[in-house]
Each structure stands twice: as structure tokens, then as C-alpha cells.
């Protein structure tokens, strides 16, 4: 338990204690809390349904529809308020999957070294160098646009990021004298990794995980914008897909609000990531 307590300390201390990066982290957290709250309490914010196409299409913002209606005659406010649910859940699942796979592989690969390490690194680097959106697109088309598949598609392209960070950190920590010392007094691999290596890696994993959140939102919204997903669900990316069709007529309200929501959500996670990066890396200050 002590190591878990240490992990929580490393993650939450920057929120409480003064120091560089705190403003960035706190503003990011505030944004994310607001976005999540809006998605959770959506039914209390608007009575309109995001999917029922019962209004006149392409109405400009008015008192009846504060943000107007879209090309399908749906209330834009309702689409904006409900539209984050899918993206947030996909991103959350994707980050969990990535961590669960990327971190252990990185640790093991760096710790074992040798041929296994080289082969795994080569595979990871290949995926890393390939355009992530193209890869996710292929996976979504192949396995179908369900929520879990979205998360998997993002996980596949993002695992290499965790792998690279964890591997390089492990390699540098592994050769420190206290790790040798632990081995010499008979500590096993598992306990060395858990007690001595893992706590050193946590801050970097947090940086990668938060930027992973931001990218997951951007990739998912991008895929929905291309139109590969389920076009019936309320989703900011889908809103832009439809809004595109009326954009040149000047119907700005169909894209601006949903687009800004994608931007704000990705921004919130990026701010947190940048804050933690400043915390752990004095060069960034």
C-alpha cells in the first residue's frame, strides 16, 4: 500500500502545494470538471432531446433555441450539452487500456533487455511513426464503430507513447546504485520494480496519460467528423460533420459551439499535461 500512497501523493501534491505548473494544472482541472459536470447533468441543463429532429432545420439562435437548430432540425444546445458523453467515455477507456498494456510492456522490455526488447521496440516505433489517425481509421472500419472499438483504436496508436517513456525512464533508473543495492540484498524483480522503479516513472506516465486524453478526444472527434462513426449519436465530431454541409451558407452556429467544446476539452487535458511536465522537468520552467 505504501507505494500506492506514494503514487497518489505524486499525482495530487502538485494540486495542493505551490510550485511551477500549479496554475496550469488547476486551470486544466477546472475546465475538465466543468465539461464533465455539463455532460453528466445534461438533462438538467436543457429539456430538449439531442436526437429528436422535430424542429425547423437551420434556425439561427433565438429565445426558443438559444444556440439554434442544425441541418436535421435538432436543438444545437442539446447536442452541445450531450455531445461530450461519448468522447469522454471513449477517451477514459482508451487511457485505461493504454496504461494497462503500455506501462507493463515498457517496464518488462527495459528490464529484460536483449532480443525481446529490440523486437518490441521495433514494433512500437513502427506504430509510433505511422499517422495515428490513419491507423485508427482502419481499425474502426474493420471492427465497426462501437464505443469499445473506438477506445481500442486509440489505444493501439497510443500504447507506443507509454512504452517509449516508461522504457527510457526504466533504463535510466535501472542503472542507479540503489537499484543494484536492492538486488544485492536479495530483493526480487517484482519488488524492485514496484518499490524503486515505478515511483520514479509515475510523473512521466501522468504527463503521457493526460496528453493521451487530449489526443483521444481529438482523434475520436476527427473520426466522427470524417463520418466513419455512428452518425445518429449526439457527438461534437458528428455535429461538425453535419455542420460542414451548411457552413458555406453561413450557418456558423451549427459548428462553432461544438467545435469550441472539442477545443476546450482537449485544451483542459493539455494544460494539465503541460503543468505536470513543468513540475517534473526543470528545463521547461
Amino acid at each position, binding site marked *: 500500500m505504501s507505494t500506492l500512497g506514494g503514487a497518489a501523493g505524486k499525482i495530487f501534491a502538485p494540486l495542493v502545494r505551490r510550485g511551477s505548473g500549479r496554475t496550469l494544472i488547476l486551470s486544466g482541472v477546472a475546465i475538465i470538471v466543468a465539461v464533465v459536470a455539463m455532460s453528466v447533468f445534461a438533462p438538467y441543463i436543457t429539456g430538449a432531446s439531442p436526437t429528436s429532429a422535430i424542429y425547423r432545420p437551420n434556425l439561427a439562435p433565438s429565445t426558443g433555441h438559444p444556440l439554434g437548430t442544425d441541418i436535421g432540425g435538432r436543438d444545437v444546445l442539446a447536442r452541445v450539452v450531450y455531445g461530450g458523453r461519448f468522447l469522454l467515455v471513449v477517451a477514459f477507456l482508451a487511457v485505461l487500456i493504454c496504461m494497462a498494456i503500455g506501462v507493463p510492456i515498457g517496464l518488462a522490455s527495459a528490464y529484460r533487455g536483449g532480443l525481446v526488447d529490440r523486437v518490441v521496440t*521495433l*514494433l512500437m*516505433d*513502427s*506504430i*509510433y*511513426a*505511422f*499517422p*495515428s*489517425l*490513419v491507423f485508427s*481509421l*482502419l*481499425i474502426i*472500419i*474493420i471492427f465497426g464503430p462501437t464505443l469499445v472499438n473506438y477506445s481500442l483504436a486509440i489505444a493501439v496508436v497510443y500504447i507506443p507513447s507509454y512504452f517509449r517513456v516508461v522504457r527510457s525512464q526504466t533504463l535510466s533508473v535501472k542503472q542507479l546504485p540503489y537499484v543494484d543495492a536492492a538486488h544485492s540484498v536479495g530483493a526480487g524483480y517484482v519488488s524492485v520494480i514496484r518499490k524503486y522503479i515505478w515511483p520514479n516513472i509515475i510523473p512521466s506516465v501522468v504527463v503521457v496519460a493526460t496528453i493521451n486524453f*487530449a489526443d483521444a478526444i*481529438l482523434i475520436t*472527434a*476527427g473520426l466522427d*467528423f*470524417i463520418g*466513419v462513426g455512428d452518425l445518429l449519436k449526439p457527438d461534437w465530431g458528428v455535429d*461538425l460533420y453535419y*455542420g*460542414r454541409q451548411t*457552413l*458555406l451558407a*453561413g450557418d*456558423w452556429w451549427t*459548428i*462553432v459551439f461544438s*467545435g469550441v467544446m*472539442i*477545443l476546450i476539452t*482537449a*485544451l483542459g*487535458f*493539455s*494544460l494539465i499535461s*503541460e503543468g505536470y511536465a513543468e513540475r517534473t522537468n526543470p*528545463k*521547461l520552467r
Partner: protein
Amino acid sequence: MVLILLSVVFLLIRVIPGNPCLFKVEKYTNPEVIATCTKNLGLDQPLYVQFFGYFGGVLHGNLGLSMIDFEPISGQLFSRFPATLELTLCSFVVSVVVGVVLGAIGAQRKGTVVDGAVKVTGILLYAFPVFFLGMIFQLIFGVYLHWLPTGGRLCAGCAVPAGLNLGPIHVQTGLYTIDSLLAGNLSAFADAASHLILPSLALGLVISGVFIRITRTNLLETLRADYVTAAKARGLKGRTVIFGYALRNALLPVVTVMGLQFALLLSGAVLTETEFNIDGLGRYLVLKVYQLDYTAIQGTVVLIAILISVIALLVDVLYAYIDPRVRL
């Protein structure tokens, strides 16, 4: 790397429970027709036979025929490639220029409001969905101001620039800006260039977020070096010190990142091409993925993988050019 990616994609797309034949024939046709079609495409053979047959072709530069319209893939790819190349090159220039200049300004005024603004701009640009930025540009510069066209590569109904035509020598790059210049057709050049501005700006600005951050960080570190202090002590101006002394060294890591940014640039190009109706590789891939055109998808992946490898090589060469300590 090309081999690994190709194998992964090859296996992945064959897992799909669909079949390109289903796209060509009417739905609910006789199963025999579909069976014949499957046989003609060689899809009934064992996977390893298909794989080595295809891979042998790739090694000979033969990407095969499309499974939908039976045209050579290489021809289809190369008719789309110039559009993507033009877009990515212009965006790349935008992102590097914006990134390095803003990053340098931030580092120069470290700790001031300007620096803070540069930092936030960097994060904000990184978080911007490229298609949304493109839409905003279309809305402002296309719909409201009528300054710039909102899609395509040329004005509607305009002829494709001819390129250089000197008797036996015929040069046509497919890059419309360059072709029109070679043909000496300035109005066509202006047209092609005006169609490029908005998409390149949108994509370039989004990518520049990363460059801003890296330039700023590395320049700050370089500015702590002794030779910079020495230059300042000799009374040189701040700007001279930064641009004449420090920036070149600070750019080394930026060059390293450039190679990796190229993948991000291609991802963005898929979205930008969709948004601006540019007939490039990205839109081609999206279309072919829908049609389950196996050979076309594989061909595009091979081309992208080769592109990335070439860029990695170029980055290494550029590195040696900037840093004389690196010998190739």
C-alpha cells in the same frame, strides 16, 4: 519498418468480415457470382499465398491492381500524391516558421506576459482540432470576407496547369503551383496558391504548437550556455545573440522532432483534405477504406511508410548539415 506495417495492415484488413466483391455487384445477387469474383481476385487462396504474392510484387515496385476498378494502384496513388505533398510541404513551412519565431520570442522575454502568452498559444494550437480551425477560416475568409476560396485546388472548371513543355522535354509535377509557374501562367499560379492558403494555414498552425514549445524550451537552455554569456558580455544586442548564436544550436532538437511531426502532419492532412475537398491521398484512403479495396489500402500504407522513412533519412542528413559534429 515498411515490412512490419505492411504485414500488420495486410492481416488486419483481411480480418474484415466483408469482401470487396460485395461492393461491385448489386446486393442480394446470386452467391455464385460473388464466388467467381472472389476467385478472380485471388481472395480464396490461403493467406500466406496472398501475402507473399503481394509482397513479391511490392519489392518489384508493383502495387497491384485496384480490387474495385482494376486500375493500377501506383497510377491512382501518384495522381493523388502531389496534392497531399503540396499541402503538407506548405503546412510544414508554416508550422516551422510560426513555431520557431514564436518560440524564440517567448524564450527571449522569459517570465514576462509575452512569454506566458506564447506558452498558452502553443498549448491552445496543439489542442485545436484541425478541421474546426479550417471551418473557422472558411467561414471568416471565404463566406464573410470573400477573400479566399473555400475548397478544391483550382477554380471550378479551370484547366490543370500544363507544366513545362519544351518539345521533347515535358515536365509536369502535379504540384499545381509549380506547374503553373513552369508554364509561365501567372493567373493560374495565383489561383492555385489562393486555394492552398487556408488549408496550409489551418494545418500548419495546429502543428506549430509543438514547435513553439520545443523551440522555447531548447532556446532557454542554450541561452544559459557560457558562449552566450560571453557574447552578451562583449556587448552584442539581445537579438543578435539569439538569432546569430543561440538559435542554431537550439534548433537541433527541433530538427529531430520534425521527422516525428511528419506523421502528425499526415494525420492532419486526412482531415484537412476532407474539409477542403482536396483530392489527395487522405481522401483517397478514406474512400478506399469504405470500399474495402484491399490492394488500394495496402498501397497507400506502403507509400506512407516509405514517405516516413524518406523523411527520417532527410532529417538525419539535415542534422549533419546543421551540426558539423555529426558525420554521416
